[in-house]
């Protein structure tokens, strides 16, 4: 079945440590890929997106993500986590491209806790 998988429900890291959040998808063709973040009391905010081209994508707040076609993955990374990064992170895909944005599909989310 077509799906977006975020294997880690909850991750805890120390402030200043590096972070990697995993996302895998299962679609026949490479979808358009997104990472959103939801901080407490806030709406979902776009961190970065990948449509085509360079497979390493830079986003806001110091985040980056790498698209790996061979692994059907789009993992989110940050070299040094800040306490303000504590939030829930959602991977999303659009299987047929942005013309079908109504078809945006989300993973179940990964909650990030940052230890002082």
């Amino acid at each position, binding site marked *: 079945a077509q799906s*977006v998988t975020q294997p880690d429900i909850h991750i805890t890291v120390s402030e200043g440590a590096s972070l990697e959040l995993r996302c895998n998808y299962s679609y026949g063709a490479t979808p*358009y890929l*997104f990472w*959103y973040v939801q901080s407490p*009391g*806030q*709406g*979902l*905010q*776009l961190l970065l*997106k990948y*449509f085509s081209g360079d497979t390493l994508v830079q986003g806001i707040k110091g985040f980056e993500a790498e698209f790996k076609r061979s692994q059907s993955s789009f993992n989110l990374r940050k070299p040094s986590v800040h306490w303000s990064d504590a939030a829930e992170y*959602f991977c*999303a895909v*659009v299987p047929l491209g*942005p*013309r079908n*944005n*109504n*078809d*945006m*599909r*989300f*993973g*179940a*989310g990964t909650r990030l806790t940052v230890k002082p």
Partner: protein
Amino acid sequence: EAGVTQFPSHSVIEKGQTVTLRCDPISGHDNLYWYRRVMGKEIKFLLHFVKESKQDESGMPNNRFLAERTGGTYSTLKVQPAELEDSGVYFCASSQDPANTGELFFGEGSRLTVL
């Protein structure tokens, strides 16, 4: 510029009652979407408006859910009668040109608790 706003932020009702959720999109955004997240699971698409027309309502779970967008501005999502499984967070999103930007702007969500 104001973002997408949703009201109420939290609603607690009893099974069988009616609830209406409201979404005000970003001004000028013709595309408006409703999504739902149930019990910590993935966020699921409900429907998509382009102006006042329903572009796609394939994600609406059943006929107890009614979405409207009169005049192509704000939208309401009514659940009548509410059931226990309707509990969750309902997100609204808007976009000016999803075909080019691919980005949806989300509201904070309306949490619905059905007892």
